[in-house]
């Protein structure tokens, strides 16, 4: 089965570059998530793929054929919209069947069979003749899902389909979507601003910001090897700490900061860097030399851990999530070590510095 390829696609909306030279390939059977804040261009990118917008530059290929010049109805995609876009004048059956009927070529009893099958899979079997206006939010969402899956679509697109559901339903719907994806074995593109959704569902994630793809990788790699400071700041909760420092013989130094980073190849070896580390990697210092020293700004007590925000001597804020039961108050001096991976970013380009 075919793959979905986005090749150098750009789109301006008004005087705003909504999508800027984006390229990626979604393999057949791959669940691909576009993750970004609102305004990052992820929804515009999805509208470009489904044909509601036309790209200013670049190509979109599905199964090797160019689809970016086709009107939406000829692209053969299944799509779930954020507010579902159910047809108000039709009952559930009509909603699910419309795509098959509008395109033509499918015999009536075949349509009927497929509608019943799709509805059955999503637990809508009893509601086929009900008006969509009388359905709950979760049921409406399932109708939208059934409508997308009833067709033999070449790819599936999801535009934040869970954002209007309450958290409990969201979990359930998430499993429905993944189950459909596994069954159809087609490329799926899923847009969300919710990291936990992205991490739970995605085979690969593209992090988007200001119309550009910042990084495409597996969810694990996003956490363990962020490509730049945007991804480092965006992914994870609380996000990665980034502390400006200067490299000096394998140690990143600043006032109150002294992090051993090992050998750094290339021109950045003695330059200014940003030292990145996860809040979970921070441990209270056990011996005399501490990697980080500063004074506490505030302390937040969670169920099992403690979130400490403190400022180094330079006034840089650092967040530490520690399990120990520390008794700290604002203004107390603290000393921490880093027990985990340390990332280095170029202070000017904000790109990750590769290390051996």
């Amino acid at each position, binding site marked *: 089965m075919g793959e979905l390829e986005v090749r150098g696609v750009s789109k301006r909306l008004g005087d705003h570059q909504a999508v800027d030279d984006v390229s990626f390939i979604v393999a057949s059977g791959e669940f691909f998530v576009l993750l970004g804040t609102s305004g990052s261009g992820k929804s515009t990118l999805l509208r470009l793929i489904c044909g509601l917008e036309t790209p200013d530059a670049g190509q979109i290929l599905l199964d090797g054929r160019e689809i970016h010049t086709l009107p939406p109805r000829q692209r053969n995609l299944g799509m779930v919209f954020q507010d579902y876009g159910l047809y108000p004048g*039709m009952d559930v059956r009509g909603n699910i069947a419309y795509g098959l009927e509008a395109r033509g070529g499918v015999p009536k009893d075949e349509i009927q069979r497929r509608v019943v099958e799709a509805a059955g899979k999503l637990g809508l079997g009893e509601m086929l003749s009900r008006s969509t206006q009388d359905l709950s939010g979760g049921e409406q969402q399932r109708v939208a899902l059934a*409508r997308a899956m009833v*067709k033999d679509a070449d790819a599936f697109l999801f535009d934040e389909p869970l954002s209007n559901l309450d958290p409990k339903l969201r979990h359930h719907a998430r499993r429905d979507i993944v189950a459909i994806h596994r069954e159809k074995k087609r490329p799926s593109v899923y847009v969300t601003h919710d990291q936990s959704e992205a991490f739970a569902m995605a085979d690969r994630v593209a992090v988007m910001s200001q119309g550009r793809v910042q990084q495409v990788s597996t969810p694990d790699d996003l956490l363990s090897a962020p490509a730049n400071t945007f991804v480092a700041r965006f992914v994870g909760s609380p996000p990665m700490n980034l502390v400006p420092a200067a490299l000096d013989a394998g140690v990143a130094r600043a006032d109150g900061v002294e992090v051993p980073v090992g050998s750094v190849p290339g021109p950045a070896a003695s330059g200014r860097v940003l030292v990145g580390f996860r809040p979970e990697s921070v441990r209270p210092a056990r011996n005399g030399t501490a990697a980080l020293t500063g004074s506490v700004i505030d302390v937040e007590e969670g169920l099992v851990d403690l979130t400490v925000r403190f400022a180094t001597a330079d006034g840089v804020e650092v967040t530490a999530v520690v399990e120990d039961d520390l008794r700290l108050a604002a203004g107390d001096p603290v000393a921490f070590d880093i027990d985990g991976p340390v990332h280095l970013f170029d202070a000017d380009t904000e790109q990750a510095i590769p290390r051996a």
Partner: protein
Amino acid sequence: MPALLPKVGMRQPKLRYSRAAIAGFLGIGVLLHLLPFYYIISTSLKPGAEVVRNPPTFIPSAITFDAWKLVLRIGDESQIVQLVKEPFWVYFANSAFITVIAVGIGLPVTALAAYANSKLQSGRGARVSFLFFIGTMMVPFVVTLVPMYLLTLNFPFTMPDAPMIPGTDTEFPTLRLWDTPWAVILPAIFVPFNFLLFKGFFDTIPNSVINAARVDGGSELNIFRRIVMPMAVPVFAVTAYMSFGSVWDNFLWQLVTLQSPEKVTMSVATYQLIERLSTAGSTGGGAAAQAEGMGDLLNSGLTWNGMMVLAILQSIPIFIAFLVCREYLLRGIKIRGLK
């Protein structure tokens, strides 16, 4: 069926009085509205002489169907031939043809125009074409009457002679719409007010519904027919009723454009009859012609009671249209601030 007046505060005497006052006031309004209808019906049933009696009578002294029989025989009766040439059902059929065609073509055209403006155009283009359409509402009919009349003579030109096709010695082909039903039908096809109603409704349909249908595989026309139209039934009912009424009851434009006796509509025929009734025997034509005209009239027995019969006949289709659309009209009034 909700109560006409809300049942609020029935226990409080003061409010009960005010309720009674409101009901009484509205009752007077209803009576005032019904009075002309009563007078039309009662006059149509009066004997010929009583119709012109002064002071007028409210309750007919005797009920007769003479006027009804007479009107139904217009055209056959030799005495009335000079008043009106054709049997009345010819005029009725003319009106019906014009109205049905104008509404039948006009509603889809207006609805599609509004749909295109609401969902297919966007930004500046949408605003400009919207203002263009609505702008035509702001030009009074009397201003366009003469230019439109000239247009019907030599369509699509307003001058008496069509210009030459450049480089040849033949004129541009023109169409003479004047004195054909199309002179009445074509200007009635696009109704800006209906456009406004449709546009207002289509704007309330979320774009995601249309977009979902597009991705689902629907062509624009299929989306309009299968998804938008079922939602817009009340709006179609309101606009159909209003278009029907305005074309059926239109008089001035039909008087200007329809001339041949066999092409005239109900409203024009009725007017011509009234005109002859009120001028016959009074002015012009010399004493002999006056006497002859008066003689025709008196012999035929057709006076104002006949006019009333025609008025009733002309109202019946509107009344039927109202009954058909009634439920949707009430809903439509709730949708938009209609009068």
